[in-house]
């Protein structure tokens, strides 16, 4: 595998403090049983403010799979999953997490795993405390709900589960659109109703009345954190960009599932302050920014640092992406801390895989114009059909409507074996040469 020749990235310094916040959170999850806390496993949307208000410890399935992959510790879980019977083409988030479930279940039963050679890694993969109950809130992708149903079966069909139904925004009515139209309004009300029922379910599971004041406080923190995040992101439309897509990837955990708190607000205030400082001092997110690209695809967590360096090595600032910019409380104006459920319901529908292609196309092309990008890189995410569904059509629209070229490269969210570095390298170089060529034509023409 070829390697980037030198590190031209200038990642935000605040990411280091952010990493510690993530580690502390997971340590808290691993130690939940010692504290006597109840544990909920959940997938999909960011229900954590509700769990936090209910005094629960929460484990987000995709997040734990992503964390294992980012630390290159996913293999034992995936091997356990494979041994159990999951095929390699299955969503690697679910495959990894179900492998963890198998290991957790075996660990609970005091059995040997049957997999040898990596005891330390295995220990981490099996470190999740077994859940007291499950909550599923998957939008967009049908796999999430089935994945939780199988988790229920792996744990012996004995744990309670609540499914929040999040309908897909097909967008076919004449008035349909992003945040508008009858479909949007009616579906939002439907999800609100589901969330109230979820809270009833949680009250039953915990045996305690739900703390609505705590939820209001949590959503006030999240609203402020999100505003700061969005303001900092908007500054990256400047040239050169003071931070990149990879910085926003580094803070996804924070906005997606870390506890709502003043510390969270302070973290994003620090992010924004560092971005502002860079703007003032003329510091760019990559050295010598010559190209600006958009990243469409769910993150390849095995390759986070690798990809950041690779693009920077080619003087590419990856400015924004569908995954970072169209998820995770991205419309804070819709959050009303005094009446939090409606804004939460709306956000849960706004997963960037929960729209028909027409809406996604509008969002992505709108970003391309806003951030002045030269091209789009599509991460053709092998086991994530939810994210790859519209990519080919969006690429065509970008070329047709904006004259923006695209490339596709292969990889996966949590399975390193699908990444082909040479393919990305050769396609990226070809696209950048094409951009150079177009620029020179524009100058001479």
């Amino acid at each position, binding site marked *: 595998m070829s390697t980037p020749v030198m590190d031209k990235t200038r990642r935000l310094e605040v990411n280091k403090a952010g990493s510690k916040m993530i580690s502390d959170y997971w340590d808290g999850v691993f130690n939940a049983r010692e504290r006597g806390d109840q544990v909920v496993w959940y997938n999909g949307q960011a229900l954590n403010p509700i769990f936090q208000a209910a005094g629960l410890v929460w484990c987000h399935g995709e997040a734990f799979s992503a964390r294992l992959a980012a630390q290159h510790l996913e293999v034992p879980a995936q091997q356990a999953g494979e041994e159990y019977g*999951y095929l390699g083409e299955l969503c690697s988030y679910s495959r990894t997490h179900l492998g963890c479930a198998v290991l957790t279940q075996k660990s609970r039963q005091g059995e040997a795993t049957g997999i040898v050679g990596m005891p330390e890694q295995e220990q981490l993969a099996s470190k999740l405390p077994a859940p007291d109950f499950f909550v599923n809130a998957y939008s967009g992708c049908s796999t999430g709900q*089935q994945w939780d149903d199988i988790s229920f079966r792996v744990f012996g069909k004995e744990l309670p589960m609540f499914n929040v139904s999040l*309908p897909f925004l097909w967008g076919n009515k004449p008035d349909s659109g992003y945040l508008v139209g009858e479909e949007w309004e009616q579906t939002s009300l439907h999800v609100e109703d589901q969330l109230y029922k979820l809270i009833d379910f949680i009250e039953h599971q915990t045996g305690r009345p739900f703390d609505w004041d705590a939820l209001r406080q949590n959503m006030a923190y999240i609203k402020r954190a999100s505003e700061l995040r969005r303001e900092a992101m908007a500054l990256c439309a400047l040239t050169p960009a003071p931070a990149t897509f990879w910085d926003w990837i580094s803070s996804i955990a924070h906005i997606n599932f870390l506890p709502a708190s003043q510390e969270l607000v302070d973290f994003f205030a620090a992010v924004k302050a560092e971005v502002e400082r860079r703007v003032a001092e003329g510091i760019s997110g990559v050295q010598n920014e010559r190209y600006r690209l958009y990243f469409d695809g769910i993150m390849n967590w095995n390759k986070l640092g690798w990809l950041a360096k690779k693009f920077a090595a080619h003087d590419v600032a990856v400015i924004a992406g569908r995954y970072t910019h169209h998820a995770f409380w991205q419309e804070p104006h819709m959050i009303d801390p005094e009446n939090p459920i409606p804004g939460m319901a709306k956000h849960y529908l706004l997963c960037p895989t929960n729209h028909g292609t027409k809406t996604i196309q509008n969002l992505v092309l709108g970003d391309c114009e806003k951030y002045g990008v030269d091209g789009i890189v599509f991460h053709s995410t092998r086991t994530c*059909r939810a994210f790859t*569904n519209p*990519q080919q059509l969006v690429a065509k629209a970008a070329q047709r409507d904006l004259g923006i070229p695209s490339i596709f490269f292969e990889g996966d969210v949590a399975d390193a074996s699908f990444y082909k570095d040479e393919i990305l390298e050769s396609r990226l170089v070809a696209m950048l040469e094409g951009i150079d060529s177009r620029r020179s034509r524009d100058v001479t023409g």
Partner: protein
Amino acid sequence: MSETLAAALAPLAEVAEDPDAYVVRWKERTGGKVVGAFPMSFPGEIAHAAGALPVVIQENREPDTHGRNLLAEFYCGYTRNIADSAAKGNLDIYDGFFLADHCIQLLGAVDVVRFESPEKPMYFGHLPTSLGDSWTPEDARKMMRSFVDEMGEFAGAPVTPEALAHSIAVFNENRRLLREIFEARRSGNAQFTAEQMQVLVKSSMVMDKAEHTRLLRRVIAEAAEVPRDDRVRLYLSGHFSHAPKPELLRAIEDCGALVVDDDLFTGMRYISTDVPEDVDAVDALRDWYLQRDVNLPCATLVQHEADWEDYLLNSIDRSGAQGVIVLLVKFCEPHMLYYPELRKALDERGVPHLLIETEHEGVPEENVRTRVEALVERIRRNQLVRS
């Protein structure tokens, strides 16, 4: 097989072989509208009640070409073929499209259809997929109501309760006749090959139901009781959304096996459940949707009380199957998730089984034969040991 039975089967086989040709002929003959329905849960009764022809869109036999740059390669053969058909204009024979399933790959493929044919009506109603919740029946009823209303808009006139009740009866009759044949096969009648059983169901997914029923009655009238012989009895499980290739079924039975039952979509799954005729039609369609997962559990739906593995083991007992071939459409995530549960149950019961993944682009027949022969041999050896 007698010549008269072969003659009775021939028109159904012709439709199964070339569904598009039937659709074109039907339109020429009736001047009616054709609804392209995507698997697996859209109730065709609603389109029928509107005077349209509901057709479950079938995977075709053409190699994928034009559509290959519209959907990534790691989609199931059916969805990639839908994208290809849309790109080639093969779906122009349909006047509108209805979709009831939330399968993420299917949504991607149908979005390609919408992209290629933006002028065509295209309706997606998201039926609830978590079936055990107290609010599910009402949510499902609302969605069925919206299907009826949308169909009225598509047809240009409201769908009346009377028309819906009539269509339900017509569809039930067709399903009942098909189930009779399935029950006969399960009980020991070896009259039809697996390939012929597929013809019966696939043609039903395409044809006008009354016409299909007439032809089906002829087939039943000509059929004779053929007792099972000593071929190894196999059960086919899985394969959602579209039909396994006929040559695959042929290869399996060529290895000295006889298929005695299945839970395939183009098989028992499609005909498992009738729509109640003694309640309001919309409520009845809701009940049909909820009851299907009870009658034949589906990996695409979540209902903790319904276990596919239990159904499979019971079906094996009823049919006397000696082994199971799991036909898994490559990249089908619900099936990939559920497969280990099936495998565990079969292993615990000591039922020999074989997993075969299928794709759109042909069948590796010799590879299949080798593996099926090994399964058949293993079953025969077990028989000898037991005897």
